[in-house]
């Protein structure tokens, strides 16, 4: 066995050993037992970094098999990159937890569960066969249930961790069925062998003459939707805030991203689908929009953060839906780091809020008490023109720099479209900011936006080259995600018109200082959004009905 294979095995083994030692020595070492977990985390991170270095130095992709039908691990760019992310975030969470959890009961158990979770995640991303993947996928849900329920006195913590658990279990089953279909078709559990067979015969059919890749793709997408909180399978995410903060950080920064990883892992299957990626796109867009709308309407900051993650997950799934698989990985890494930081710094922000509420003062207050001049407004039509034009120019120029054939890919155009929306929204927000020198502020924001876009474009291009070096394969993914050109143009023009009209209305409303009070229809809509579309009420009612029906059946059949 060469050094690479040894490191691939050592990486998930380290947290397993750390969990075992933490459990066995917990009674002897007391609170100091966390040092074992942190040391295991440091070692895992170093091993993951070395593995990434080996991939970057040009080592061949390989497969470490145990000689049985399952238990194999992959050494490829995707597994190594995800491994480094997981090891890094897990290490930060462990270091943070050493003091954060010091006053909590079950200190040792917490670190054991954290180590086991890290091991399960590392095995999941490196799984080289379907059974290993299924085992890790299933165990993550179980371990998360107990991590979120760390406080065994809290019934509400367990109530909400149960929602997470049952949604994850719901998401496990399509993956099990997909594995069964693949095994029936190819008579192997090995992922590299399955992917080679897929490329050799893209027209394989399964039972009832269904195209095997459509069936498998749809099942895997369903599994990813449950794990990444897509609309209708999202209710667990905003409510699982009763768990410890480090677990929330780990969940929002790492675990919830598993949907994007899963779709990427099965990219060789998705490349031969016809319609599945269109549905993935629709679900992703819908989730992104609904998640953002719900985030804006919530008064509870924790729920708001949960819905923010839901919106981001929608965006990540949408990127897969347009064929930009590597971009989804970049997105999940960026979001993981950003959201992890946000959660881990939540305590500090609460502390600061106790000294300063951070509520902005109104114009009259700043003018009279703070003696600052009132904000200077520019003509709304001029600002609207800048808002619409500048982002599109920056985006086009930076993308043409790395990919001159950009407009041949529909997915890339859609992503540009979203970049334009984001950039314009940023400038629109500038219009509402209070500044003595608005032109300076606009110039700074345009400059920052340009830097971010160029950085994003270059990094995402690097990810594409790193994860999917075969340009034909990338083109095939975009092709699988493409739709009829006529429909594509109509949809883009329609979406642009809706967004531009919305902005113009918002500019106009802002200019006229609010104008009329909201209509009855608008208020009802706001209440509906605030009540989260009553989805939770429907699920709760359904659950109660099922439990009542079960109790009735037990009464009828009380003899046995």
């Amino acid at each position, binding site marked *: 066995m060469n050094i690479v294979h040894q490191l691939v095995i050592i990486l998930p083994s380290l947290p397993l050993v750390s969990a075992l030692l933490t459990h066995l020595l917990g009674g002897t070492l007391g609170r100091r037992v966390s040092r074992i977990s942190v040391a295991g985390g440091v070692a895992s991170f170093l091993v993951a970094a070395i593995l990434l270095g080996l991939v970057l130095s040009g080592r061949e992709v390989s497969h470490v098999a145990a000689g049985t039908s399952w238990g194999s691990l992959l050494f490829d760019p995707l597994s190594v990159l995800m491994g480094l992310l997981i090891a890094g975030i897990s290490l930060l969470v462990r270091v943070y937890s050493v003091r954060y959890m010091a006053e909590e009961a079950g200190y040792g158990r917490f670190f054991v569960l954290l180590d086991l979770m890290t091991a399960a995640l590392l095995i999941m991303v490196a799984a080289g066969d379907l*059974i290993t993947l*299924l085992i890790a996928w299933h165990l993550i849900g179980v371990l998360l249930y107990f991590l979120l329920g760390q406080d065994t*006195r809290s019934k509400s913590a367990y109530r909400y961790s*149960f929602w997470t658990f049952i949604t994850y279990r719901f998401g496990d089953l399509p993956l099990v069925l997909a594995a*069964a279909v693949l095994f029936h078709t190819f008579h192997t559990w090995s992922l590299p062998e399955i992917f080679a067979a897929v490329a050799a015969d893209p027209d394989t059919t399964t039972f009832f003459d269904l195209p095997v890749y459509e069936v498998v793709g749809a099942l895997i997408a369903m599994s990813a939707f449950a794990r990444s909180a897509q609309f209708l399978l999202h209710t667990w995410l905003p409510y699982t805030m009763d768990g410890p903060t480090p677990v929330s950080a780990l969940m929002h920064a790492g675990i919830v991203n598993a949907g994007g990883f899963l779709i990427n892992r099965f990219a060789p299957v998705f490349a031969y689908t016809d319609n599945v990626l269109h549905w993935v796109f629709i679900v992703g867009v819908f989730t992104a929009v609904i998640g953002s709308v719900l985030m804006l309407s919530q008064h509870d900051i924790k729920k708001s953060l949960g819905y923010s993650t839901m919106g981001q997950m929608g965006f990540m799934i949408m990127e897969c839906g347009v064929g930009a698989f590597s971009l989804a990985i970049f997105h999940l890494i960026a979001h993981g780091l950003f959201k992890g930081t946000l959660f881990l710094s939540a305590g500090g922000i609460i502390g600061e809020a106790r000294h300063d509420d951070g509520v902005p003062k109104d114009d009259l207050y700043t003018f009279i008490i703070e003696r600052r001049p009132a904000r200077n407004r520019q003509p709304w039509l001029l600002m609207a023109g800048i808002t619409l034009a500048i982002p599109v120019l920056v985006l086009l120029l930076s993308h043409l720099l790395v990919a001159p054939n950009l407009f041949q890919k529909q997915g890339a155009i859609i992503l540009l479209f979203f970049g334009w929306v984001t950039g314009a929204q940023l400038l629109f927000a500038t219009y509402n900011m209070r500044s003595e020198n608005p032109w300076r502020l606009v110039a700074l924001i345009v400059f920052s936006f340009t830097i971010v876009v160029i950085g994003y474009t270059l990094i995402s291009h690097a990810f594409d080259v790193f994860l999917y070096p075969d340009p034909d394969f990338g083109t095939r993914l975009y092709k699988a995600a493409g739709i009829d050109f006529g429909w594509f143009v109509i949809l883009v023009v329609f979406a642009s018109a809706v967004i531009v009209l919305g902005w113009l209305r918002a500019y106009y409303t802002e200019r006229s200082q609010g104008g009329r009070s909201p209509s009855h229809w608008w208020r009802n809509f706001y209440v509906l959004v605030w009540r989260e579309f009553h989805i939770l009420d429907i699920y709760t009612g359904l659950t109660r009905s099922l439990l009542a029906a*079960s109790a009735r059946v*037990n009464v009828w059949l009380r003899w*046995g």
Partner: protein
Amino acid sequence: MADLGFMFIGLFLPLFPFSMVFNAVLARTSQPLLRWVLLLAWPQIGLWTLSAHAGAIPSWLVIWALATSLLYAFRLLAMREMGRWTGFLATSAWALLWLPSYAGLPASQLWSFAAGFSVPLVFLTLLAQELERQYGAAYTGLYGGLARRIPRFAGVLVISVLAATATPLFPTFFAMLHSLIVSQPLPAVGLAGIWLIWSWAAARLLQGLIVGPAEPRPELDLGIGTTWGYAAGLVGLLVAGLILSGSRL
């Protein structure tokens, strides 16, 4: 005549309403040893009789078995008494043995599947008896807080429930996976649904027992030796699962 033979086997590899016999017998058996024997031997009798039976299993029997399993899984959701909960889970799990039997899996493998389902249920029976001894009843949702009161007991209980409801890497997981692979598409979907309901029922059982504040009253947790005994049994189950899966999947 062959169908009548299957009806008889349906007593042991449960088919509703014959399945009610096992649950009635289990509910009326107070002797611990007899309960363990019932849990271990009942499905094995069914499999032994099935292997001796000459006729091929008709496809409608698979649907019947699946419906029986679904019925008892559904009944698990509202069952609060741990002894009967164990009986219902046993019925739901053993009924599924018809699926791999129909697919023609070798008898030795079916016996190992049945044993894999039975052993964690024996553990649960032992734990239920311990609860009855301490609290007078083994009811979920009645007292709670076991994780704080008797943490070793709660730990063993959690892992035993996970082992019984087909969590990786226990033999039940591989038995469910194998049954799913050899099934036709629609029964496979049904089996996946039953698996989901087991998880739901397991979470309900555990939440009602382990979660809650610890009351200030002296209670006896499992001894260190007993805990190690349970741990050894559960690790043995894990190893059995790994060996079975490595050689047969």
